[in-house]
């Protein structure tokens, strides 16, 4: 995946989050404050609007800065800052190995800054396992990523707004885990399709 392909994939997330707004809103209404759908839509509309091109590093950094400025709550800064950190590792041509390396940084950044670990029903439960999925299966198939999000259904939230729902948070996919599926899928698709 070169810089042009990367930019296409990230711009493509505008359409994905336009389509998935109501799905993410419905999940977040169950166990949060209901703004995750509109936040992700606003964030990637801004990315489509403002991120114009450059090297892979520049595209990732601009994406990160844009997400940090345009999405409220904790998810915007976490996604945004992760893109900024991933930009350091990106090669001009991102292959599967390089993407796995970037996903490790994604995972570490969310753990460090979100003060989160596995099994707490967050975006981390998808992000932290994505590098292994890529290494084991050679790609990032939607069904494999979606399974990681489905696994958050039975977890009880201990972080963020959802933590206030305690036992009642069971049975709903974490909205952040679901949005992470779409972001990581877009990156994997870029690598697998050249």
């Amino acid at each position, binding site marked *: 995946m070169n810089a042009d392909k990367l930019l296409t994939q990230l711009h493509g997330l505008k359409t994905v989050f336009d389509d998935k707004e109501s799905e993410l809103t419905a999940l977040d209404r169950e166990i949060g404050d209901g703004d995750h759908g509109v936040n992700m839509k606003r964030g990637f509309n801004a990315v489509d609007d403002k991120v114009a091109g450059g090297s892979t590093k520049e595209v990732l950094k601009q994406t990160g800065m844009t997400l*940090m*400025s345009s999405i*409220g709550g*904790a998810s915007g*800064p976490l996604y945004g*800052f992760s893109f900024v950190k991933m930009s350091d590792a990106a090669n001009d041509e991102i292959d599967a190995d390089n993407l796995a390396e970037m996903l490790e940084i994604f995972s570490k950044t969310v753990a460090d*800054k979100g*003060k989160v670990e596995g099994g707490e029903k967050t975006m981390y439960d998808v992000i932290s396992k994505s590098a292994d999925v890529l290494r084991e299966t050679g790609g990032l198939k939607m069904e494999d990523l979606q399974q990681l999000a489905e696994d958050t259904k039975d977890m009880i939230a201990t972080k963020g707004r959802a933590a206030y729902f305690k036992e009642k948070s069971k049975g709903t996919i974490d909205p952040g885990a679901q949005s992470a599926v779409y972001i990581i899928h877009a990156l994997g698709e870029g690598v697998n399709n050249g």
Partner: protein
Amino acid sequence: MADILIISHSSQIAEGTKALVEQMAKDVTIHASGGVDGGIGTNIDQISEMLDSIEDDTLCFYDIGSSLMNLEMAVEMYEGPHAVHISNAPIVEGSFLAGVESSVGSTVEDILKKLNEMKK
């Protein structure tokens, strides 16, 4: 003389705390910001803007929830010449102590040591 930076979810807390510290430490530069879009919240941009204007090594104070996360990210992205420290002391008491200590010429290391004795 160390600068003080205050980030709060509320503009009134940020401004009020700044006024309180300034009353005791007139010569210390205090950067304060709170709230987002006229409401409650913090974001990284407002912290980065404050960091761009610091004139010396700086001690930062925050309030609840995501203010620490945003502060940590902004500090990590800061590329200027000064050392930036985050204190987990209570925002009002911590910045007040740091302001007074800075105004009488205490070093950043000394101030941090005193702040560490007043954990949240």
